């Protein structure tokens, strides 16, 4: 029998763009589209777009968020609109009673287990839902990423209004997205988390918007090298 595999919403587009795929925790991920050095250089010089939809995306709803984050990560939940690193995960506070946890693909199960175990020991209703498969996650990486986003969304993506580790919810290219800023080293990077079914549309629309600033696809290998 064929071995179990998983595909992101961008799989067909990546294949069409000539991506070479690699396996990460059962996911078929775009390893590279062209020479890795060229992809890295494009991201550093201007802007590049990458598909990180396999990343874990877990939402937690309830009024016990502080207690939960303390129990799982011995950390304080970030303020609304902000994110914070916690162990191998990132915590993003969407509302006072709504937290988004992002992880690497291979850490989703372990994180869910820890969360569910801790939640069971707490009083009050806490709903923990793994949205990994339901959300695409596109990353715009590079110094021109804010400019490209500014063609699709009315938010201010300047460093003062949207600093590193900030989170906002807004319309991007007429679709509802959670926007995270998580710079990679000194390189600005914004992640767009939205409906998986709209991932392909969003990829095509963002690529079109960034055409004149040299927006290029970026593979996983180049991302890891940044």
């Amino acid at each position, binding site marked *: 029998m064929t071995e179990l595999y998983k595909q992101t919403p961008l799989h067909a587009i990546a294949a069409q763009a000539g991506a070479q795929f690699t396996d990460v925790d059962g996911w078929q991920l775009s390893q590279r589209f062209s020479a890795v050095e060229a992809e890295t250089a494009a991201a550093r010089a201007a802007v590049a777009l990458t598909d990180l939809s396999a990343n874990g995306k877990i939402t937690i709803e309830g009024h016990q968020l502080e207690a939960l984050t303390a129990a799982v990560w011995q950390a304080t939940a970030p303020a609304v609109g902000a994110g914070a690193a916690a162990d191998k995960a990132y915590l993003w506070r969407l509302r006072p009673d709504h937290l988004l946890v992002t992880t690497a693909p291979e850490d989703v199960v372990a994180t869910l287990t820890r969360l569910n175990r801790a939640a069971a020991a707490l009083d009050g209703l806490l709903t923990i839902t793994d949205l990994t498969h339901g959300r695409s996650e596109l990353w715009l990486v590079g110094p021109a990423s804010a400019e490209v986003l500014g063609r699709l969304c009315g938010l201010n993506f300047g460093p003062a209004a949207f600093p590193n580790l900030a989170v906002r919810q807004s319309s991007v290219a*007429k679709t509802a997205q959670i926007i995270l800023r998580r710079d990679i080293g000194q390189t600005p990077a914004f992640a767009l988390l939205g409906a998986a079914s709209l991932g392909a549309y969003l990829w095509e629309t963002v690529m079109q918007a960034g055409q004149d600033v040299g927006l290029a696809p970026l593979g996983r290998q180049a991302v890891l090298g940044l």
Partner: protein
Amino acid sequence: MLNNALYRLEPQAGETIDRAQTFTFTFEGRAVIAHPGDTIASALAAAGVHVISRSFKYHRPRGVMCMAGHCPNCLVQVGDEPNVRACQTPAEPDMVVKPQNVWPSLKKDAMAFTGLFSRFMPVGFYYKTFIRPQAMWPLFERILRRIAGLGKVNPATPPDRYDKQYLHTDVAVVGGGPAGLSAALAAAEQGATVSLFDENPQPGGHWRYALPAPDDGPLPDLAAQAEAHPGITVYPETTVLSCYEDNWLSARRGNRLFKIRAGAVIFATGAYDRPLIFDNDELPGVRFGGAAQRLLRLYGVQPGKRAIVVTANDGGWRIAAGLQAAGVSVVAVVDERPESEAGAVSHVLQADARVFWRHTIRAARGAGAVEGADIAPLDAQVRPQFIAGDLIVINIGLTPANGLLYQAQTKISYNEDRAEFLPETLPAGVFAAGRVAGSHAGATELAEGRLAGRQAAAFLGLAPAPPSAEITALAGQKAAGPKRSSARVDVPGSQKRFVCFCEDVTDKDLETAIAEGFDSIELLKRYSTISMGPCQGKMCAANTIHLCARHTGQSVAQTGTTTARPPLAPVSLGVLAGQNMEPVKRTALDAWHRANGAGMMVAGLWMRPEHYGNPPAEVQAVRERVGLIDVSTLGKLQLTGPGAPDFLDRIYVNKWQKLGVGRVRYGVMCNDEGVVMNDGVTARLSETTWYTTTTSSGAGAIFEWMQWWLQSGWGGEVHVTNISEVNAAFNLAGPRARAVLQKLTDADLLNEAFPYMHVRHLTLAGVACMVMRIGFTGELSYEIHCPTGAAHYVWERLLDAGRDFGIAPFGVEAQRILRLEKAHIIVGQDTDALSDPISADMAWAVKLDKADFLGQRPLRQVAQDGPAQRLVGFTMARPGLVPDEGLQIVRPTAAGPEIIGWVTSSRHSPTLNQTIGLCWLPAPLAGQPGATFTIRMNGKLEEARVHHGPFYDPQGDRLRI
């Protein structure tokens, strides 16, 4: 080829052209030599082409008048694009430029004869003339549309690329002249981020081309300072189109629309040259002072060979001096002021130049272009004297470019002393500086710019406010400055004297309109179309106000102004539309469907496979073997918490408290008027976890609907999470479905272990899935929900497993037939905004005896009164006839057919080999199985019969095998 050396000067300081390179483009088929940096108009002017296009109504020859993109006189067709401003558009190699409003040629235009009949075509003539006889209007309209209009659009032109860019800035400065630049620098020095927008290729404003006044001294290079300042971003060639509430601006650069959010805005928009109304005032060769200077300084082109300068200020004399320096013979300077009011200016002229004090121009003379001017004294009725020349420079004053200030809700009033409309009270966060604010001298412009920059920074809390003494001192300085504008807007005459160059409206037209009663400035505008053409009032608005005031006996201040609406400059619809963004939803199997021959259809935002080539065969596969359909588009909501059953009880018309874990129930959801909103199945996965599906198009709306009620007080101990896209979903349907599924799991799938309307967690081919045994198609079927990322894998495994059983994928069309054979409704197709579930044959689902739920009261009323209309099935009497969905059901009466219902669904059933459908009928008729009624099809009445219950397997035995 046209010789571009005819009017080209030696290199000029500050010129924008690169003389080291040349290229050619064509104008009306003739090659024109140009340099990089030339505009179309400057290259044409260098080649001595002074007539560029013809006018809108009378087809009069027109040439460059303002050289600033403000007037409509140089609109040309470039390639497929009409209404291109030749004076602003860079010439490019091989560009194909054509004049507009000409046939067959610019020189000999057949429609120019209309000018001979102008006395019969006053303003508004076509409103009155062509309305009778009414039947002729279509013909008149066709002819008028052919004659009128500007340029020609080629519908075959491929779309260009457009986009939008949001900008956020502390201070937006509109205008890159001396005031704007100094304002930007002052604000940036206080720590503000500044965006400066200028419509020209380089900032600098009139300092780029105008000769400085003697008092101005050396001009600082503010543009270079602004470009170098890290806090300032300069946007050249960017026209600000509008200003809305909260300092929200829109601007256009090329094919891009900027949407700008600014903390404070400084308008340093400058001023336009003001036309003087006189006989033949738009004859090619009549140019504004600014145009003459731009041609000289920016492009190294003589605007003419023999110039007559008409002025009312010292600036005109500087222009005359500049022309002389460039080798243009200034034959006369005509100044309406007495010599005593002028500065020490006359010495700048050569000895042979004639000077006329207290004189003005009465007429431009020439056949097709200026050959001279009639000059007359202002105070005496004497015969004008003719002065020969090929250039008439008009420099009698400026109109402040205050349209954006108006839009920003600035109070603007007419200043009698300055003869200009100037800002009086500015809204908070809005500042004005420079010529638009009445600053005339260079030093004042700089000071006012700096002050505005500091005020803007202070408004944002970045710096202390400038002392009021400084503001007062500046106001005094401005008042003491030289006067630049004349209050005189016209001189008497007897020929055509155009106020509006866009639409050929003359002063006589305005007089007539006012006499007809259109005597308020807003009415006058609408009737005469003045200020509604491509110049958007820049050339005509101020002069119209003066004329209206004179003819109505009011002051200019009493007459008021027209409303300056956005956009202030013409903008293409493509720029407003921006990048094409139409969200499309695709399931995880989209590529598979396409690769396997699916005909795709649009379903809301979704793309779905309508069929794989043969819907009846797909139906047959499901009825006889097994089929597989992608239903990932279904909405999927997760409800958690002990409060979930209470909440479901309130949202649905069904009861939920007693649904056991592992059971599934079909539910109907109504709004508070008892109208069916949505339907789907709900599974109880655990004591506190529920899984609800909605229609594909309703997922988002139902999630929001539930959230609304949760937050309105029904949200005790329950969370609703939209997991529509977390899981893909497939329906495996057909008598062999169990056998197929069994190949992928060790779980017991027999009826006793997994009965109809139950849910199970199964591992299929190694993937954890949730499977509901439900039956929209009427066959044994399993709705398989698996993680979306594994959708492709699971789908392929199901097809592999089903190969030996004759499995076939089926599309939406087959599904529609299958469900119709079972008489299952589709919400939104078989129901509408008035359909309640009792009338829609789902009374069995409505539990009126439970506690409060949405729609309970109106549904009680329906239950008590009985429905007026009912949704029922029907068959057609005539075989093979399939009525279109939406057709009317009529009852013949003596007065003609009476509409009594309509068809909502209809198909030919391949299983039953007959036409089946659903329709709304009056309840008494619907209640009689076999009763006949008529459907109006293509004008004929076709007989149909009422059918109750499913058409296929009425007892539902096949669902439970």
